[in-house]
């Protein structure tokens, strides 16, 4: 049910997450934050079963924080992505976590990067990604219009197009999309679409 759309632009990453919390046919809460911030400029958007989401993301966030405190230097996006993938993969044949994660991070050395970790422990670095049923609608738009190193205005324009298609065609009403930007200054919100 969750929709997540994410793209990397020139020195920043952008992510749009819907804020619905549904239970059966009712929307319980329409301003839920389905993400966690790891360190200064790494951002993890998670979609899947709510219990698994809270438990797993808490574990990841605290593990990474402990590591930073112990070592004194923050982990890179690549290292965090592989660490998360290992944990998902480790649980796979014992008690699988039914969540998909999108990790967006900014490192001074390589700029912005986006990683998809799915519930089977697949890890893939991508330029743009979408989660949920709406990915069926959104990927074709992204395939057509995405270019590398777009600036913020172009990226938001593309996001608006994607959300427009979702509102037009998706059965479930998702009125609010939280937009977050991740760049050298950290993670901050750009408002709600």
């Amino acid at each position, binding site marked *: 049910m969750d929709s997540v759309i994410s793209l990397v632009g020139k020195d920043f990453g952008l992510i749009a997450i819907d804020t619905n919390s549904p239970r059966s046919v009712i929307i319980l809460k329409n301003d839920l934050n389905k993400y966690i911030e790891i360190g200064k400029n790494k951002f993890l958007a998670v979609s899947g079963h709510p219990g698994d989401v809270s438990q797993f993301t808490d574990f990841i966030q605290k593990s990474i924080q402990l590591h930073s405190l112990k*070592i004194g*230097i923050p982990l890179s996006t*690549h*290292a965090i992505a*592989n660490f998360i993938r*290992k944990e998902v993969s480790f649980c796979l044949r014992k008690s699988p976590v039914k969540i998909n994660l999108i990790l967006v991070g900014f490192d001074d050395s390589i700029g912005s990067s986006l990683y998809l970790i799915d519930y089977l422990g697949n890890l893939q670095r991508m330029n743009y990604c979408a989660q949920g049923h709406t990915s069926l609608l959104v990927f074709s738009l992204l395939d057509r219009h995405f270019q590398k190193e777009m600036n913020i205005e172009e990226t938001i324009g593309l996001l608006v197009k994607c959300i427009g298609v979702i509102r037009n065609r998706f059965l479930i009403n998702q009125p609010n999309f939280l937009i977050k930007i991740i760049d050298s200054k950290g993670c901050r919100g750009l408002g709600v679409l």
Partner: protein
Amino acid sequence: MARRYDQSTTTFSPEGRLHQVEYAIEAINNAGTCVGLLCTDGIVLTAERRVVSKLLAPSKTSEKTYTIDDHVVALVAGLTADANILINQSRLGSQRHMYKYQEPMPVEQVVKSVCNYKQAYTQYGGLRPFGTAFLFAGWDAVHGFQLYQTDPSGNYSGWKATVIGQNNQAGKSILKTDYKTENKVEDNLKVAVKILLKTMDSSTPSPERIELSTIRRNEDTQQIEHYTLSDAEVGALIEDIQAEIEKEQKKEQASTGDI
């Protein structure tokens, strides 16, 4: 007085010292000298290889220099058997990090993990400490080229240049005069060999008794290169330095009018 409190590692003396750890540190001072020098474009490492008998088969692998990972190298001073265990531990730690994060372990972290392992043997278990000191040298993206010294207590410290093992005080005094932080690897090769010649207890130094290597980073391939100099190259350096020493001695004799 120390006799009553030095039998067990896990007992403090009344003066607040751990005698077993201190004795272990003493054991290092009889070991073959190791020298490490940080340069602007790399690290120079050299060690004296002790040959106790002519009947010993020449070693195919090094007994002083060990590769811990692609980006970390260690020099050993002290009990070789103890060193083997610790080298194994550090290699394991480094690969575990690589397995988990798919990134090389930062050099200081490698050193810390070995030191934490060493420290355990000074606090519990009733086992004696490891009688080895290391010089860890490597490169990582966070701090560039680094050189660390570890001792049996589990302490470590970062150095620009250091000497451990036999006659290390003599070596360190040469460092004070001859080592320059702006030197490149080429210049420091000579300084390293000069220190070894002074600290070795042989009047006829030969390349077989010196292990000399450099760590550099290839900017194009972004790989760390650990290069061990051949006997011929070491021999050439020894000759250069002996010639320089003779020249200096002659100059001194001339200036004091001893001719």
